[in-house]
């Protein structure tokens, strides 16, 4: 498990949220830092480009329910997808 993956992910989240990078942690709730459904689409684009993965559509109910409530959720899913990617290649 590489911390540099988490680091990269938190960099991307910080870029799109209202927070300074050192304030973004795994516990950060995306909905509380200005990440709405459209910002989420941009975050997903950056993550997919950065890690060459394909993230399934999150649940856009506008309540931030579903896969991406916290930064930790994002890290978990991205790492799973990277692992799937490595296994299949």
């Amino acid at each position, binding site marked *: 498990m590489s911390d540099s993956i988490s680091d990269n992910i938190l960099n991307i989240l910080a870029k799109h949220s209202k927070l300074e990078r050192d304030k973004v942690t795994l516990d950060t709730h995306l909905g509380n830092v200005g990440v709405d459904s*459209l910002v989420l689409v941009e975050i997903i684009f950056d993550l997919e480009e950065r890690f060459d993965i394909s993230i399934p*559509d999150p649940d856009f109910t*506008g309540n931030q329910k579903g896969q991406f409530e916290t930064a930790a959720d994002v890290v978990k899913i991205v790492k799973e997808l990277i692992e799937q990617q490595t296994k299949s290649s």
Partner: protein
Amino acid sequence: MKRVVVTGMGCISSLGRNCTDFANKLFEGKSGIGPITLFDTQGFKVKVAAEVKNYNEQDHFSEKELTKIDRYSQFAVLASRDAVIDAGLDFSEPLAERTAVVHGTGAGGQSTQETGYRRVYAENAKRLHPFTIPKLIPSASSSWISIDHGITGPAFATTSACSSAGHAIGMSLLMLRSGMVDVAITGGSDALITLGTIKAWESLRVMAKDTCRPFSLHRSGMVIGEGAGTLILETLEHAQARGAKIYAELAGIGMSSDAHDILQPLVDGAARAIRLALDDAGQSPESVEYINAHGTGTIQNDHTETQAIHAVFGEHAHKLAVSSTKSMHGHTLGAAAALEAIATISAINEQTVPPTMNYLEPDPQCDLDYVINKSRPMPLSVALSNSFAFGGLNTVLVFKRYNKD
């Protein structure tokens, strides 16, 4: 104020080549949505669209014409030819100069653009076909229509994404009311089922996983459609003087902007457009019986639109029939307001409201009467057609049953 009426209609879409087939399929709840055939969807998440079926451009245009006319313009020309024949109009002068052509489009000659870019960027082509530019510009459709019928009056295109045809119809209405012209050939066209466009839409993540389910719980987004619709609008006096058949009255238009966001819709902006339309038409909210909704099937629009209808209509909202025909012909973007105007006018003429198809179960946030899954015969005198575009550009058209006074 001069009254304006609809004296001709023409259309081409996934539901057929003419307005009779289009309307019949709507009332029967038939869908034009199916697997994409216009390009290879290998690797795409989006696999469905509402394509025009069995379309062969050589059937309608000569080889020479085809070097100069993009698919979106072809649709505009065909819809307009049918509308002009339907209206029984002959455009010798002085009428030719007193006729406007205002057609809308979201993107113009998109397939020409994509072919051009692929050749230049991916294939290092040394040259492009000389007529690439005149094919791709968004004013081409209006030019072709004016050429086709010898129209020498004002001709131009309007663009406002999903409201493009609404603004085209609106501009025509204003020119007719002002006395500048007596007739307008107006509507919209788009042919955006192309590899690049669908890839771009897919990236926005608003596309349906299965089909278009406006207002339903478990709806998952839009389905793109292609096609064109044209209305012939005339001042009432001009129509009566020549004994024209009159389909309906275009009683009013509301045009508003959200002033909010390039993507997110705003309840106030949509409600404002509805209110302005009713004011312009001199109609009370309680007089409205049917709304042909924007109803794209996205989580956002359908909720926002429902709230806007509540805001304007209050108690009366629950008495309205509201349906989205995008559930059958898809979201035709620049053609949407025109095709949906034809649907609304057909509803008035048939005294039947077309259904919202593919509805699964109620979403608590969308609580109106959406005429689900089956059309409904009912008395209809006043109906609205909504279009709420990206960037907050809204148009609402008011159609009234025409009774010979």
